[in-house]
C-alpha cells in the first residue's frame, strides 16, 4: 500500500443543502488538497456531517458541485464514487466475519484474488489474528480499525471519517488518534475528518476548518487558528478565550488602541481582524499571568484588576476565575512550575498579558453581554 498513488484535490463549489426551510450547508466553497488530513470541526448541527455525506454521495446537494481533480462527481451515486467512508459507530456488517467485511468493497468491484490484499490490509491495522471473528466479538477499538481497513482497502481518492472516535473512551481515543495519523501518513490518501472534538481535530489534522451554521468560519493550520482566531465563534469554540468588547480609540506603532471598560488595550495590527470601530479584544487564558495587586508588571503588558472567585488545581496547571470590576469573569491558566505561592479565593489581583498575544475581533453587532453569554454557553 505504500507505493505513491496519484491523488487529487477535492473541490466543493457553492455547495448548499436545504432540508425544508433549514439550510444545513450554506454555499460552501472549499478545496481540500490531495494527501492532506483535513478536519471539519464544529458543534452538532453545524452542517459538517451533511457536507461529508454529500461528498460520499449519501445525500444529494440542493445546489453546487463536488469534484475530485477534474472529475465532477456530483451526480454520481454513492456506489460509483471513488470515495469511502468510516461511519460513526462503524456500521460493520454483523453477518460477515472481519475478513469478509474488509473484502466487501474489493469483491463488489469484481477483484478476483482478494486474499493477499485483505491480508496486507489487516496487517496494516494489526488485526490479522482476528480475521475469522464476527464484528460483535471485537472491542470498540478493534471494530474501529476494521472500519478503517474496510474503507481504505479500496484505495479511495478520499477517505471520509464521520466522528470515527466518538464511541471510544478517552484513553483509547488518544491511542487511535495517533494510529489514524500513522495510517494516513503511510497510505498518503486524503482524509476528511468530521468531529466536534477540537482537541482531536488539532492533534490529527494538517488543516482544520471550523464550521458554524453551515458556513466555514475559519480555516488553516491548527496552531495558526488557535493563536489567531478571526471570529468570536472560533475564539470560543477552539479552546477558551477571554473577550473584552470595546471601541477603537487610536493607533500606536503597528498596533491599535481599544478602549474597553475604562481600560486601554493594545492589539497588534497584524492580529486585528476587526474592520471597523467596534473591536473585541481576545486573550487566551494561558497567555495571562496573575499577580498580587500592586506587584510589578512588565513593560508592553496590558492589565486588568480583579478578585479571584474560583481556583481549580488540575495538577499540571491551576485555573483561576477572576472577576473584573465590571463583573466579567476571566479565566487564567497558570503552570504549576513554582511550589506554593498560589492566589486564593478573595485575593485582589491583577491579570496581565503581553500585548503581542492579544487579538482583535470584529465586534459589530455584539455587545459585551453577547460575548459573555456566548462564552458561558460554551463552558
Amino acid at each position, binding site marked *: 500500500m505504500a507505493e505513491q498513488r496519484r491523488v487529487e484535490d477535492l473541490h466543493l463549489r457553492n455547495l448548499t443543502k436545504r432540508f425544508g426551510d433549514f439550510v444545513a450547508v450554506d454555499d460552501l466553497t472549499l478545496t481540500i488538497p490531495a494527501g492532506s488530513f483535513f478536519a471539519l470541526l464544529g458543534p452538532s448541527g453545524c452542517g459538517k456531517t451533511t457536507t461529508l455525506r454529500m461528498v*460520499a*454521495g*449519501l445525500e444529494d446537494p440542493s445546489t453546487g458541485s463536488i469534484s475530485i481533480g477534474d472529475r465532477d462527481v456530483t451526480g454520481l*451515486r*454513492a*456506489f*460509483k464514487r471513488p*470515495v*469511502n*467512508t468510516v*461511519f*460513526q*459507530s462503524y*456500521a*460493520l*456488517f*454483523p*453477518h460477515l466475519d472481519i475478513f469478509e467485511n474488509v473484502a*466487501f*468493497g474489493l469483491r*463488489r*468491484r469484481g477483484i478476483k484474488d482478494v486474499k493477499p490484499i485483505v491480508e496486507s490490509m489487516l496487517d496494516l491495522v494489526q488485526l490479522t489474528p482476528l480475521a475469522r471473528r*464476527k464484528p*460483535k466479538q471485537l472491542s470498540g477499538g478493534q471494530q474501529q480499525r476494521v472500519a478503517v481497513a*474496510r*474503507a481504505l482497502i*479500496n484505495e479511495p481518492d478520499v477517505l471520509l471519517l464521520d466522528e470515527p472516535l466518538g464511541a471510544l473512551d478517552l484513553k483509547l481515543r488518544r491511542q487511535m488518534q495517533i494510529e489514524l495519523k500513522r495510517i494516513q501518513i503511510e497510505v498518503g490518501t486524503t482524509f476528511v475528518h468530521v468531529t466536534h472534538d477540537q482537541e482531536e481535530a488539532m492533534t490529527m489534522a494538517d488543516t482544520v476548518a471550523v464550521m458554524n451554521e453551515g458556513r466555514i468560519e475559519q480555516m488553516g493550520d491548527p496552531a495558526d487558528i488557535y493563536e489567531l482566531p478571526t471570529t468570536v465563534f472560533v475564539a470560543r469554540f477552539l479552546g477558551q478565550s477571554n473577550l473584552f468588547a470595546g471601541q477603537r480609540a487610536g493607533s500606536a506603532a503597528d498596533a491599535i488602541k481599544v478602549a474597553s471598560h475604562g481600560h486601554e488595550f493594545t492589539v497588534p495590527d497584524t492580529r486585528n481582524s476587526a474592520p471597523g470601530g467596534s473591536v473585541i479584544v481576545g486573550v487566551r487564558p494561558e497567555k495571562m499571568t496573575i499577580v498580587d495587586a500592586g506587584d510589578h508588571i512588565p513593560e508592553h503588558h496590558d492589565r486588568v484588576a480583579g478578585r479571584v472567585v474560583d481556583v481549580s488545581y488540575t495538577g499540571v496547571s491551576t485555573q483561576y476565575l477572576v472577576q473584573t470590576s465590571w463583573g466579567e469573569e476571566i479565566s487564567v491558566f497558570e503552570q504549576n512550575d513554582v511550589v506554593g505561592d498560589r492566589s486564593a479565593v478573595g485575593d485582589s489581583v491583577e491579570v496581565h498579558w503581553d500585548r503581542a498575544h492579544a487579538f482583535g475581533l470584529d465586534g459589530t453587532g455584539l455587545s459585551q453581554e453577547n460575548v459573555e453569554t456566548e462564552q458561558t454557553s460554551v463552558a
Partner: protein
Amino acid sequence: MPALVPTSNAGSDTPPQVAARKARTGYLLLLPGMGWLAVFFAIPFVTLIVTSLQVPAGASGVYAPGFDIANYAEAITQYGNLYVRSFIYAGLATIFALIIAYPLAYFIAFRGGQWKGLLLVLVIAPTFASFLLRTYAWRTILADEGPVTGFFNALGVLPEGRILSTSIAVIAGLTYNFLPFMILPLFAALDKIDHRLIEASNDLYASPVTTFRKIVWPLSLPGVVAGTLLTFIPASGDYINAQLLGSITTRMIGSAIQVNFIQFRDYPIASALSVILMFIILIIVSIYIRRSGTEDLV
C-alpha cells in the same frame, strides 16, 4: 487497604449455600412453564399416542387399549396422497405468502416512517374478524358467477373454468389467511436492520440490488425462517380452507382427521393421522432450520 480485602473477596467468590439457593430459585421460576407444558402438551401428546394404538371394541366410537400398529398402516395407505397434497398446498401457500409479504414488510420497515404503527395494525386488522367468516367471504369473492372468475375466464387462464372448488381457491385461501403470520416476523427482522449498513454497502461499491442480496436478505433470514414456519406449519394441518373453498378432490390431511374424528368417530385413525402429521412436520422443519443456518445470524 487490608480492610477492603474480605469484602471484595465475598463479592467475587459466592459462598456455596448462596449458589445453591440461587439455583433453587431458578428451578422454582421454571415451574409454572413446566407445569403448563406438562398439562397442555406432554399429557395430551401421550394420550394421543395411546389412542392411536387402540383397537375397536364392538360398538362404533368405543375402543379398548391395545397396541395396534395397523392404525398407522391404514392411515398411510388410505391417506398418503392427502399428506402429499397438504404439504404441496402448504408449501405453495408459504411461497406465495413470502412473495407478497416480503415487499410489504420491507416497505413498512424502511419507508413506513411515522405510519409504521398504523400500517402494522392494518396488516393484522383482518384477523379481528373470525377466520371462518373471512374464508366464507372468499366463497363469495371467488364464486363462479363473480367478477373475479369472470375476469380470469375472459383471459382464458382457468383450466377448469372456475376458481371455487379448485386447488387454486384452497391455496389462495391458505395464502390469504396466514399472510399476517408471514408479515409480522419479516417486519420485525427488517425493522432491526441498521440503515447505516445499507449506506455502508452503497459506499463500498454495492449497487442497490447487490446490497439487497448481500446485506438485507441475509440479515432478514431469521424473519424469513420464522415467517415461513408460522405459515407452513398451521397451513399443512388446516382443513377450513380445503373444506370451504375446495372440493372432494382438494381435501387436505386436516379434513381427513376431522372426518375420522367427528363423523366416523374413528379416534385411533384420527390420532394416528395427527401423530404422523406432527412427525413429518418435525422432520421437515428440522431439515429446514439446519439448512437455513440461522443460528449463525445475529
